[in-house]
């Protein structure tokens, strides 16, 4: 950007004015004007008065012989005090000194050559400074320079705009250059056009390496279809939600990046380019993992108490029963009762340990694969439908006609659904309605489990996902159900949330990233 922007403001109109003025000077020479000459003079005057330039005519003694309205207005001058005044009275002293305009005009008289391309900042009393671009034109009669015409164009606004545009451009260039985020522009097909330094740093690929390559080919294999579909949607002018897709660095490392896409349209309204902003999530993931670890440690303290209480109750019951038996219980009915308490207590203690294990070590995330969510939910609802019928709960299911693909683990998701459905049944001891629905929109798969049960008090809403938080009587709930759900859904990179009104019911919503079917 080294070119001088001000050179663009030399307008052809000034050339015409010059010629007109030259003609006029000729006719001033002779005192008699023919009608056609008179008409011409009127035309010149009109022209002079209406052009947006300031025009000043000075004679060889550097006195002003003519000034158009524009000049007088901009300079806040009267024609009376201007015409006939020496040029150095018309311009303020600082301008004269700074631009040496007098000397320049004098040179035009001497050399008879046009002078152009200078700028003056001129400040008339009481108005803000203006910037002019001026040209000094020698007006010749019979080979001699009779007078000089100073043409001044007010370029204040243009200069300001150019400076502003330049500044904006510089700033943008800086943003792109120094952004921590990956800034990638691509054509409508998703082939890379620009690739900023952050993108180079994060991936290890230079801008030259990736130029012209399809963006989706830089993604991890299993994310390529998703990237492709995102690009296709944006290219069709649709807005897409930001999502996380991994890039493969030149080192082979996988880099989690949150991508947000936007598009640019050309004059005909067609999408002509795509712009992708990607945030490297590596650090954030590491931080989140650490945070999760800390939260787990803190939870461990809370849990140790919970575990102690939960486990020692059934152990205590079994232990008591064993002590009674050991003393030799006389009554056979009581004997049987003791045996039953021992068995039940041990089973419960062991069940609690099972849940704890699942909470602390949910089965491997590596077991995830692309599965259809609909049969998982349908199957789980079916397994539990007997209990619902017993409790007079009407179950309504609503699934989309086509499959809803996600990257997930069937067993874990089934466990989540079971916990939610059991909780809903527990909230409706007198019966009620349970609605289970899956919906699929904008790259998300959403499961909704809605009941008409007792609802959850506002004070408890934040606690229900905590391990061991339960409002159920001892022996009928350990409070691990929802914490297990939370762990599993987080592992699926999803969210679980609740909305509830006491006495009306509760709505549990699970939001999972949906996957696009891989073209065969």
């Amino acid at each position, binding site marked *: 950007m080294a070119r001088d922007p001000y050179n663009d403001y030399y307008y052809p109109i000034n050339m015409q004015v010059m010629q007109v003025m030259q003609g006029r000077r000729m006719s001033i020479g002779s005192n008699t004007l023919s009608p056609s000459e008179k008409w011409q003079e009127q035309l010149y005057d009109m022209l002079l008065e209406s052009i947006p330039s300031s025009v000043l005519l000075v004679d060889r003694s550097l006195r002003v012989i003519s000034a158009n309205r524009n000049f007088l207005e901009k300079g806040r001058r009267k024609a009376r005090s201007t015409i006939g005044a020496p040029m150095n009275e018309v311009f303020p002293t600082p301008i004269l000194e700074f631009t040496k305009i007098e000397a320049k005009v004098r040179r035009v008289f001497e050399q008879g050559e046009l002078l152009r391309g200078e700028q003056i900042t001129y400040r008339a009393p009481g108005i803000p400074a203006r910037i002019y671009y001026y040209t000094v034109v020698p007006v010749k009669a019979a080979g001699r320079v009779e007078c000089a015409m100073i043409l001044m164009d007010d370029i204040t606004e243009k200069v300001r705009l150019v400076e502003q545009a330049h500044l904006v451009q510089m700033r943008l260039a800086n943003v792109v250059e120094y952004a921590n985020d990956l800034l990638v522009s691509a054509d409508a097909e998703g082939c890379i056009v620009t690739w900023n330094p952050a993108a180079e740093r994060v991936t290890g690929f230079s801008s030259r390496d990736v130029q012209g390559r399809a963006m989706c080919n830089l993604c991890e294999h299993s994310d390529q279809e998703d990237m492709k579909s995102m690009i296709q949607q944006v290219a069709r002018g649709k807005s897409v939600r930001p999502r996380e897709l991994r890039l493969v660095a030149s080192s082979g490392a996988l880099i989690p990046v949150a991508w947000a896409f936007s598009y640019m349209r050309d004059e005909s309204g067609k999408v002509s380019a795509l712009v992708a902003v990607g945030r490297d999530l590596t650090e954030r993931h590491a931080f989140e993992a650490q945070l999760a670890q800390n939260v787990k440690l803190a939870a461990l303290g809370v849990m140790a*108490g919970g575990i*102690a*209480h939960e*486990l*020692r*109750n*059934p*152990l*205590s*019951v*079994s*232990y*008591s*029963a064993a*002590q*009674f038996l050991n003393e030799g219980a006389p009554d056979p009915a*009581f004997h049987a009762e003791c045996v039953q*308490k021992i068995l*039940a*207590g041990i089973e419960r203690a062991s069940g609690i340990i099972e849940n704890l294990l699942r909470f602390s070590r949910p089965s491997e995330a590596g077991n995830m694969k692309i599965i259809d969510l609909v049969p998982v939910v349908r199957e789980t609802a079916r397994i539990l439908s007997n209990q619902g019928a017993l409790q007079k709960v009407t179950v309504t299911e609503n699934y989309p006609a086509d499959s809803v693909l996600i990257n997930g683990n069937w067993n874990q998701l089934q466990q989540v659904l079971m916990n939610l459905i059991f909780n809903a049944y527990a909230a409706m001891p007198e019966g009620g309605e349970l609605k289970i629905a899956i919906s699929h929109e904008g790259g998300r798969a959403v499961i909704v489990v809605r009941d008409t049960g007792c609802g959850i008090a506002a004070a408890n809403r934040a606690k229900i996902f905590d391990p061991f938080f339960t*409002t159920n*009587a*001892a*022996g009928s709930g350990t409070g691990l159900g929802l914490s297990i759900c939370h762990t599993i859904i987080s592992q699926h990179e999803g969210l679980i949330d609740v909305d509830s009104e006491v006495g009306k019911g509760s709505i549990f919503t699970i939001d999972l990233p949906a996957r696009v079917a891989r073209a065969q």
Partner: protein
Amino acid sequence: MMSRDPAPLRQAPAQRHTVLIIDDEPGVRWSLRHLLESNGFTVASASSGVEALKSLKASKFSIVLVDAKLPDIDGINLAQRIRIETPCQSPLILVSGYFYDDDAVVSEVLSSGLFAAFATKPIVHNALLLIIRDAISSAGTPECS
């Protein structure tokens, strides 16, 4: 064993000590009731703090067994409320699997006198009976007032 008690009775026709068991776990209530009844106590039980406060306002007990974790009121908090909100002055015993013997919290509630004794779960029958009898005899009254 009860006949050993020297203090005169004010109300109860029989010389039996009454125990209030506060525990939300039905199995624990079952075992304590069986243990205490077969050892000559009269047993009443409550499965929540609110229910316990109600019972203690209405009736008198020689001794009260308090679980540390109840669905509505935390056991230690409940003990304080028993002293403030009910006329009960009889010994309170903290029975819980939530603490260990020399747990800081336990030491504190024992030394402040809020609780007369602590028994951990799983309950060792003979140990609990000893603790209860000790507490009753050192309280020196046959009944809660």
